[in-house]
């Protein structure tokens, strides 16, 4: 006999829906407390070093927003698809091809002014990301192939393509044989918007996209159709919503946003093409989308939390001598706790033995 049992609610609880993410975050921090203690660190000091110290300075706040920006951007795009049960999990690859395309534009044209180069980079990045996402969309609508697996396989291909470009055609001839492109000229770099930080104009792009996505989801017919297609596929189809259209819109939005995030990275903090242009933002954004409840406002908050996990991981490396991969550990734990807490949306948890009434 299980120590607890689940009793179905008559209607989903919206309170539980919005309470689950903070509960999951608390559970994650509690897990961190135990983990640090087990590793022989003073847990309170370690948690402070992980979650507080990185954002105690103006520069730190800038870094928090800088890393939250690609996460929020990608998650916003993915959430449009996820609402409609279109599972694009290849954002990491779409980000990489966005960076490749924008990097190509920058390397070819950065001798001209920023008003020419930067907009072209964004267009190229968005198109490339969308194109990369179009492959799983086409395979799904045309061949019925599962988009989860195809979009993920394309992550490996995109990463290898980026690696090929910086090892081969675009390698900096004066770069001491390192696999990297030459640094972009200033005209291909996003201007810093807050002095004393690395926070750049890319964050404004993110905010604009998040606002546009909210309008699209909440205020347009197509956005409404996408939601219906996710909640009640049968009803949507009966009402004339084409399932293929839903897949295409879901995939292309995610791909374009991830591509733009790739542009923000190379035109922002990186400033050139490297074999890796993202520390797993494309995958972390999946978690951000879920923790943010697929809602633009929730996603912004969740992206700040996830960004803090990245900063904490870096701080843990320096202050606590722990590998920075602890970030991935926290991220995975957070999502699992969230999914577990989501049970409260549809069920009440009853502790103790079954009563006669509840027996089906």
């Amino acid at each position, binding site marked *: 006999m*299980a120590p607890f049992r*689940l*009793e*179905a609610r008559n209607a989903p609880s919206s309170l539980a829906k919005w309470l689950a993410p903070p509960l999951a975050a608390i559970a994650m921090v509690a897990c961190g407390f135990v983990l640090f203690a087990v590793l022989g660190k003073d847990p309170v000091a370690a948690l402070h070093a992980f979650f507080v110290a990185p954002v105690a300075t103006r520069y730190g706040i800038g870094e928090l927003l800088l890393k939250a920006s690609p996460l929020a951007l990608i998650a916003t795009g993915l959430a449009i698809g996820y609402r409609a049960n279109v*599972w694009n*999990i290849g954002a990491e690859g779409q980000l990489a091809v966005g960076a490749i395309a924008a990097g190509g534009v920058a390397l070819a044209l950065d001798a001209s002014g920023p008003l020419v180069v930067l907009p072209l980079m964004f267009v190229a990045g968005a198109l490339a990301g969308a194109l990369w996402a179009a*492959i799983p969309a086409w*395979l799904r609508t*045309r*061949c*019925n*192939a*599962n988009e*989860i*697996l*195809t979009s*993920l*396989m*394309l992550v*490996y*291909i995109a990463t*290898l*393509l980026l*690696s*090929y470009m910086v*090892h*081969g055609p675009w390698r900096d001839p004066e770069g001491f044989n390192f696999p990297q492109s030459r640094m972009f000229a200033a005209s291909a770099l996003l201007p810093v918007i807050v002095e004393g930080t690395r926070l750049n104009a890319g964050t404004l792009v993110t905010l604009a996209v998040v606002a546009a996505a909210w309008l699209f989801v909440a205020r347009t017919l197509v956005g409404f159709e996408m939601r219906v297609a996710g909640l009640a596929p049968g009803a949507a189809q009966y009402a004339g919503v084409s399932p293929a259209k839903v897949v295409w819109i879901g995939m292309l939005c995610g791909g374009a946003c991830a591509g733009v995030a790739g542009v923000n990275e190379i035109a922002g903090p990186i400033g050139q093409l490297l074999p890796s242009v993202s520390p797993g933002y494309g*995958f972390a954004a*999946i*978690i951000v989308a*879920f923790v943010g409840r697929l809602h633009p406002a929730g996603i912004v908050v969740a992206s700040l939390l996830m960004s803090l996990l990245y900063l904490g991981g870096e701080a843990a490396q320096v202050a606590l001598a*722990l*590998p920075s*991969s*602890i*970030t*991935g*550990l*926290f*991220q*995975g*734990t957070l*999502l*699992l706790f969230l*999914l*577990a807490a*989501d*049970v409260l949306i*549809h*069920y009440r948890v009853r502790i103790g033995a079954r009563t006669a009434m509840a027996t*089906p």
Partner: protein
Amino acid sequence: MIDTLVGIVALTLAAGTPLVIAALGELVVERSGVLNLGVEGMMLIGAVAGFIVTVHTHMPWLGVAAAIVAGAAMALVFAIVAVSLQANQVASGLALSLLGIGLSAFVGQPYVAAVVDPIKAINWPPLSSLPVLGPLLFAYNPLVYVSVALAAGVHLFLLHSRAGLVLRAVGESPRSAHAIGYRVLAIRYAAVLFGGACAGLAGAYLSLAFTPLWSEGMTSGRGWIALALVVFATWRPYRVLLGAWLFGAVTLAQFQVQAAGIEIAPQLLAMLPYAATIVVLAWMSRDAAAIRRHSPASLGKPFHPQR
């Protein structure tokens, strides 16, 4: 000439083995109606657990046992969230993969440059030294034989045993199985744990026999390819063997091309297995009716007796 062919067959089987083991495990899970996308994470945990235990004990088979337990432990986390608490299975599986990638990198970091006593290929003097037949049949890593035996075992269990019939019933119609008194959730737990144990074993094969070393993310997508193989095999065990060996051959092709002195960047060649997965998946899935006919009817749908 014949020696080259035998060599290619042997290397193909060696490269296909982790896919065979992981895909068979996932096949059983999916036949019970549960979709666990966490194979990549469970494989990595198995690989790192097996490696660490072997580094400390110098007993590779103890490492294999540890990998099996570690893979099953990861699967237990998934089962609690996705089977008991009925979370979205796609999201739970992704979470498990992300957790496995992070956790394995975290605990494995001190072992990146370590060396282990690997599991060696068998050598039975009279048989292994036979011409052609020796290297073709009697000179593999023991885990290669285990993978073939596993395929036969899963086939017999699923299609020719009463317990297998019950497991399939749970995957097709959990409500009916529940109504006639089978414990749907317990059966799904057992299937998920078996899948985790297989993924752990597949990981151990990589870190203790195939490579043998530990590096971050060393499965490089094999867990995901194993998931695609289940579709390729249309949920039938013996076809997993064929599919996995086919992929072994594709993996091998990239080294053959390089050895033949053809000038292609290694990064472009390394794309082959992933591109092949996409092509094969699209090819197999194009007949939607056939996929529907073969896939477990309740795949991915949580079950709660009250709903």
